[in-house]
């Protein structure tokens, strides 16, 4: 039964997830290609020193990619459910409504985590070609809060799409947007260390968010 729910979610999102992951990989490829170009034109040592001592984040075009992914997957999954209130079809299934929603959320969150894992893995291993491991870890630590924002954005957008009342959708968008902005505070490389685990924990808790709007949807 749960596999059938996964199957439905896969049918809705497969092209979005595949294309998004491909685009993310292309973006990372571009980042390292541009890095190599900088090495050739400015010298490797010069680029290293700007990264180490001047806060150069050559990978900053990656900043909003996880966030975009979270939004895209949420829309791909939940907009078809919200249209004509098709989610009623899932709620009618011989499956607890909350269980059904959590399985849907698990699918979306897992597909995002797989994509982010691929991205971070690429950044790490491509990074190791050009930098010592200490610099690569700093890059990963800088990129991690952006990735966590993608997971939070997914849950927040899912929750908003399922929310039946427009005034509340507007208010939730504001609160959600402000919360997501906390993942992009202007800070140096690897500065998010202390806040990261808190933000990640909140992103995990937020996976339950759509249960609230799903409940309101069901109770009218």
């Amino acid at each position, binding site marked *: 039964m749960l596999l*059938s729910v996964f199957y439905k979610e896969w049918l809705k999102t497969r092209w979005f997830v595949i294309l998004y992951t491909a685009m993310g990989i292309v973006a990372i490829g571009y980042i390292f290609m541009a890095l190599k170009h900088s090495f050739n034109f400015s010298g490797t040592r010069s680029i290293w020193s700007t990264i180490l001592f001047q806060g150069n984040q050559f990978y900053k075009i990656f900043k909003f990619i996880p966030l975009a992914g979270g939004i895209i997957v949420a829309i791909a999954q939940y907009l078809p459910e919200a249209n004509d209130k098709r989610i009623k079809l899932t709620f009618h299934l011989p499956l607890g409504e909350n269980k059904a929603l959590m399985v849907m959320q698990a699918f979306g969150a897992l597909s995002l985590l797989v994509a982010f894992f691929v991205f971070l893995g690429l950044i790490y291993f491509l990074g190791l070609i050009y930098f010592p491991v200490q610099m690569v870890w700093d890059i990963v630590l800088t990129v991690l809060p952006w990735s966590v924002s993608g997971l939070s954005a997914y849950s927040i957008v899912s929750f908003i799409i399922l929310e039946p009342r427009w005034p509340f959708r507007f208010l939730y968008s504001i609160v959600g947007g402000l919360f997501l902005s906390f993942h992009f505070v202007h800070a140096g490389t690897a500065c998010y260390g202390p806040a990261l685990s808190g933000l990640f924990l909140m992103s995990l808790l937020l996976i339950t968010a759509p249960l609230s709007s799903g409940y309101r949807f069901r109770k009218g």
Partner: protein
Amino acid sequence: MNNAIECNNLTHYYGSKRIVENLNFQVKEGTILGLLGKNGTGKTTVFNILNGFLRPTDGKCLIFGEDTQCLSPATKSRIGFLIEGHVQYSFMNVKQIEKFYSGFYPKWKPGSFWEIVKKLDVSKNQKISTMSWGQRSQVALGIILAQDPDLLILDDFSMGLDPGYRRLFVDHLREYAKSENKTIFTTSHIIQDMERLIDDVLIIDFNKVMVQSSVSDFLSNFKRFDFELENDDVELDNETLIVNIEKVRNKVELYTYSSERDIRNYLAERSVTPINFSQVTMNLEDAFIGLTRKY
């Protein structure tokens, strides 16, 4: 015989607007029951409460003994819901939608699904979103029948369908229900279709059940008499005898549960001599309008 559906003291308000109040009715297992009521009398509200998409202000509905606000998965597997508009997951194609639903129902009968769907002139890979309304409704019907549910709750099964598809629905549903002693609870805005399908009728009006009986009993008990008046100033209003009366100038349509003799006696008491007095045979639609008024 147990009740498939039971609604007890059902009350619902939208804000301060009363929709239903202390409504009580039961649907016995094995019956095919149609729900009728004028717009705004609470049919959609009752369906939404039965579907679990509305929590009533007071009272409750039970399906197979369980509160509809928290049906167990086991009970849900015995119910086939049709959502108004034959709404389905339009991003799926025919093959995918069969594969999706079959994973949920242990009693799934793929034969029932494909038997209906093969009548469509579509390939297995055709997306639901590219189908006509009628084709979509057929897919929806196939899904419901393949579930082999004990209870079917159909919210306006004829919506958007041309006569051919409506007839197909009625024929399949009736045959399914009768052959396997299933229960159907349905509504439709096309009462002629309902009449072909249902055995029993439930007519509601805000806070009361106006009629709950077999269609045949209702139509034999509820009568219409047409006649003309000599004097069109006469007022005829006896709430005990007359359920409803439509008078246009001197032409009268009188609706009643009473006998022809009782009506004639009443007219005589009022010194009214009816002209061209006759009993008119009604179908369900005529009877419904007669019971609930045109306006």
